């Protein structure tokens, strides 16, 4: 045959993507949506609809009307598909709006109270409704960090142990443990607070940061256990087999091959747990309460924290104290965001490493004897 391509021929084949949406089509779609947005804005101005929610409703109606009108030409299947696309997108939009609104409104309302000293001052000599250039959130950040540290110290070992149990030991209680961990994730935070109040606070005779930390630990344990399990599951069985083949017993394989491989992933587990509990308010209202000054002693009495700071400021209700609550929220959200980004970066790296099966520690700790 004449059109057989010889190996020596320099034939480059451009990959084709005939299904890709053309740029023209994409631009037309965007333009159409922009037009609809403007139209919806116009409708909102002249009709009883008002504000952002009214605009969103008008936009949805315009979009749906257009879709149905143009879909008349299509078959029943395509018409339904087009309508569902609009409905699903609108639902998703509605689902996303609250969080966007929270981020934006926290930033807009909170920036007023932020000044360089805000992170380093406390409220000892500042009244809640003083000007925003006095006082700060330093004591609350310190208190929160102390309690979260206590919670982490308590839960990280337990979480890792339960992860190892579920992935390495796989005893008879595997199903039970997994079930209990998942159910525990649903214990209401206020119940955890009540429990710690009835045990730790009442037996110590006073509210304390330690009690708050333990209450947070109760809430943090399920998150850490579950994430640790997920992470350990990613370790390929080849690594374990390699450990056994080298003559290592199960405990050595688990401690010196499996665990080092997922070190970063276990850190992620801890950080996700921290991000989950650092904003918990209800248990702290029952166990550690609030203070206005710096305090470093976790067993010396009530210990302030960011959530209780925000709560107290908001409940006080004056103009400046509510502004302080928003500024505190900015700090709290920033901390959550920081831990979250950290967890994602570490998690991404550990996942890659576990999948590649090349834990550096795994290679060095077993292979060299």
């Amino acid at each position, binding site marked *: 045959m004449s059109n057989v391509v010889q190996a020596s021929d320099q034939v480059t084949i451009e990959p084709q993507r005939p299904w890709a949406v053309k740029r023209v089509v994409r631009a037309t779609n965007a333009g159409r949506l922009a037009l609809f947005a403007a139209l919806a804005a116009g409708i909102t101005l002249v009709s009883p609809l008002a504000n952002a929610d009214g605009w969103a409703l008008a936009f949805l109606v315009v979009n749906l009307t257009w879709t149905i009108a143009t879909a008349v030409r299509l078959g029943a299947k395509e018409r339904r*598909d087009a309508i569902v696309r609009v409905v699903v997108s609108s639902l998703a939009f509605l689902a996303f709006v609250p969080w966007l609104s929270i981020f934006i*409104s926290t930033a807009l309302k909170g920036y007023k109270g932020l000044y360089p000293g805000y992170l380093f001052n406390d409220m000892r000599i500042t009244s809640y409704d003083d000007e925003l250039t006095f006082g700060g959130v330093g004591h609350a950040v310190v208190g929160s960090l102390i309690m979260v540290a206590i919670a982490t110290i308590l839960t990280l070992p337990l979480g890792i142990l339960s992860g190892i*149990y579920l992935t390495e030991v796989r005893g008879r209680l595997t199903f039970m443990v997994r079930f209990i961990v998942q159910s525990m994730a649903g214990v209401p935070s206020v119940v955890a607070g009540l429990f710690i109040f009835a045990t730790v606070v009442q037996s110590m005779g006073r509210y304390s940061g330690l009690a708050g930390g333990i209450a947070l630990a109760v809430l943090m344990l399920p998150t850490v256990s579950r994430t640790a399990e997920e992470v350990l599951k990613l370790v390929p069985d080849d690594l374990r087999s390699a450990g056994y083949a080298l003559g290592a017993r199960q405990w050595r394989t688990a401690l010196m091959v499996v665990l080092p491989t997922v070190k970063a992933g276990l850190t992620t587990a801890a950080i996700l747990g921290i991000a989950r509990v650092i904003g918990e308010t209800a248990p702290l209202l029952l166990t550690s309460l609030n203070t206005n000054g710096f305090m470093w002693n976790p067993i010396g009495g009530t210990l302030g924290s960011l959530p209780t700071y925000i709560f107290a400021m*908001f409940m006080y209700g004056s103009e400046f104290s509510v502004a302080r609550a928003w500024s505190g929220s900015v700090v709290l959200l920033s901390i959550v965001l920081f831990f979250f980004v950290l967890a994602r970066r570490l998690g991404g790296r550990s996942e890659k490493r576990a999948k590649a099966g090349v834990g550096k520690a795994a290679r060095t700790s077993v292979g060299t004897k």
Partner: protein
Amino acid sequence: MTTVETPTPREMTVIYSRADRIFRGIVTAGALTSLLLLGLIASFLIFRSAGTFREFGINFITGTEWFSDGFREVGDESRADNSVFSIGPMIVGSLVVATIAMLFAIPLSIGGALYIEFYAPRSIYRILVAMLDLAAAIPSLIFGLWGIEIFTSFGVRWATFLNDRLGFIPIFSVEFENFGRSPFVAGCVLASLVVPITTSVAREVYSRTPRDLIDTCYALGGSKWGAIRSVVMPYGRSGVIAGAMLGLGRALGETVAIYLMLNLVFTYSYEILDSTGGNVASMIALKFGEATDKEISALIASGLVLFVITLIVNMIASNIVQRTTPRA
């Protein structure tokens, strides 16, 4: 014909060394801590609330009065303690608010999950997933703050509209036209709090739909909606239900957001636009501050009721999750 002799698999035995047995013992003990903890919580709550249940019996669940005889001095036996504790309206309130929240949250999260997995441009897929996880980490306190300072104005407008048009239906009628602190508005805020949780579970389940099945659907001439309806949705149904149950558990146990959004009123109220309501969790936080010893016991009893309700909901959810997730 030749018979092929199939070799019988060799029996494998595992012999654990002493070090291994110690290791396994320690790990098992660590794993059982959560079991122990859950048991401890339950038994402590039961132990501390026994007095309340003995005194008020079933009335504690059905009654409508919460009165703490606070003026009576400690040890003052000159007159009887007239405290009455019961949480009927709060249980109903919890259910009402959580139901409203789930009515909004379920369609929103199914829509959100479908959009992220099947409609969103690939370029923003990762961003959306990250945002979803982040949203699930926003503290409920901030949801409450946002709800009362930002959302209320919108919620009140919707509530007014509902009352104007549908006021003849009993649940939409009101006594006073003041919609700001109604279960409806609180339910909306609770919905936005629950949506990230249910959406991320639903998305995860949908993303595990076998690609082959979807492609088969397209190959047979199905549209995207056809594939979603006939493959993705049935495949993910139990996962979505489990996610919704987890969300429901969260909604039932929510404290601060409801504390900030609702006036606690101890009467049975089914008018979702009226400014009365409450739930068990926020009541515990509210009454805790100045509680007497006897009241603390009653609060712990309320905590036990809440604990049992959410535990049942969550056990159903995790049971569904465990039965449907493929074993690793």
